[in-house]
């Protein structure tokens, strides 16, 4: 059985999906590192903070999308200043799709990075302290490099999950072909049209291939995390 070759229209969908996922992870990465660092430290009210970060995992994706509309839509508390002062609109745009994916995969990425932090020996940071390194210095020279595998896992897991995000994207960014119609949305749309099963099947195969590739790469990084000296 040979893999089907995508048509130009299908390529557009695939490339858009990859772009959205890439933007989502690029934006979520620095935030997840900071959040992971904060959650691994001895911050007061850590448990509350942890719950808020994990909210997108617990809420129905459509609700997350709706919350984004409320906050980042052109009339929302975040969206209004962005639109009025910088003429940036997030809702119903590619950037908005990326934002929706980013929010959805953030908890996943934070967890992966925290796993990276937890796998490192805290004694090493203590040793660094006796050698003259302050806390920020220790974070960048010891903790973060040693959490490298965790960061890589966060990137691949976040990327793979973004490829499949549906509810939040369609709610916040709508289903605009070429702009926000990622693979999952395209498959859904194809199934709404009579006779669109064949196209849905083709798109689904591409989605499966992308997901498999992402999972395999993610697993390779996960096994590197475990035996740590």
């Amino acid at each position, binding site marked *: 059985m040979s893999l089907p070759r995508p048509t130009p229209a299908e390529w557009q969908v695939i490339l858009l999906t990859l772009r959205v996922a890439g933007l989502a992870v690029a934006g979520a990465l620095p935030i997840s590192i900071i959040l992971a660092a904060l959650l691994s430290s001895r911050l007061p009210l850590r448990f509350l903070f942890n719950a808020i970060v994990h909210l997108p995992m617990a809420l129905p994706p459509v609700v997350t999308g709706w919350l984004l509309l409320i906050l980042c839509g052109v009339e929302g508390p975040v969206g209004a200043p962005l639109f009025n002062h910088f003429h940036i609109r997030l809702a119903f745009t590619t950037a908005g799709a990326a934002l929706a994916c980013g929010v959805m995969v953030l908890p996943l990425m934070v967890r992966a990075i925290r796993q990276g932090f937890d796998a490192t*020996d805290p*004694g*090493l940071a*203590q*040793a*660094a*302290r*006796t*050698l*003259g*390194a*302050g*806390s920020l*210095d220790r974070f960048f*020279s*010891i903790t973060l*490099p*040693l959490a*490298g595998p965790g960061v890589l896992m966060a990137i691949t897991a976040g990327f793979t999950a973004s490829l499949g995000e549906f509810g939040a994207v369609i709610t916040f960014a709508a289903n605009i072909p070429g702009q926000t119609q990622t693979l999952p949305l395209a498959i859904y749309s194809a199934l709404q049209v009579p006779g669109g099963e064949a196209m849905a099947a083709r798109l689904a195969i591409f989605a499966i291939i992308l997901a498999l590739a992402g999972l395999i790469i993610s697993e390779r990084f996960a096994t590197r995390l475990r035996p*740590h*000296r």
Partner: protein
Amino acid sequence: MLFVTVENVFRNFTVATSFQAPVPGITVLFGPSGAGKSTVLAAMAGLLKPNHLDIELNGEKLQRIPPHQRRIGMVFQDGRLFPHMTVKENLLYGLKRAAQVKIYVDETLALLGLENLLARRPATLSGGERQRVAIGRALLAQPRLLLMDEPLASLDTPRRAEIMPYLTRLRDTLRLPIVYVTHAYDEMQQLADHVVLMEAGRVLAAGPLADMAARVDLPLAARDDAAGVLNGYLHSHEPERRLSSIACGGQIILVPQQNIEPRMPVRLRIPAREVILALDAPREISVNNVVPATVCAIGRDEAAHAALVEIDIGGGILLARITLDAAERLRLRPGSRVLAFIKSVSVEVT
């Protein structure tokens, strides 16, 4: 001079210690596991925030300085080399963050024999090599005080023997105060200038090693492997007799020929069970050292039916472990004059 006070109340254990240490020199905190020695070190290094901490080094108070600026180096039992860096990068880690350099890279590499290890990764090093790198790294961070927390405890006997000469060299060449924690008696005897004996979170006694080792009122002397310590220097060699003579105070002790230069400082360990006491000296006897001595004190180890006799040989204090019966037969009392027989082969020279 270094003055240290550490007080901390744990859940079922209290540490309340206060001691002073000569600068420079190695002060060994000696005691059984759980005595609180590592707690004291952790508090000094700033890894633990105790209820009360006071560190004064050469008149300067250190406890208010944030830990990463305190410049109190620490060598851990498990080395704790950074696995994502080479040996060279590990060594330079503290140096890069130091304001002033007084301990240089070349001399540190030479002192610890690290020249050939620079490009290696910590995971590929042996235990002894790892600890030497850990010591080098701590030294290059330009500490004003070095702490060593049972650095040899995780090494097996051959590795320990391999690294000991480096530590004795450290003792002899560095002008740093070092506080060394161990529960190994022979490490203490080989390295300490000053001993602080700890038990159950408190200081039992403290003093120069040579004095502490032979005190019969301390648990040290009752040990089976108890030994007296003499500090001296190599006086001369007698190649025809294959002996060397060590001058300790006014006393000369003959030992099997040593491979060291005259006037080199030397430490002698004389196990208490190798010391014979007599009131009279036989003429034809194999023992090379027949030393007149005065009994200072006599301790008793009832369980072993042994007497621990503390004797002053003029150049130092030694310990003799004999049976209670023998002590009675010789009618030994504090002040008795005796002769101490010390076999040359029994003397450990470091």
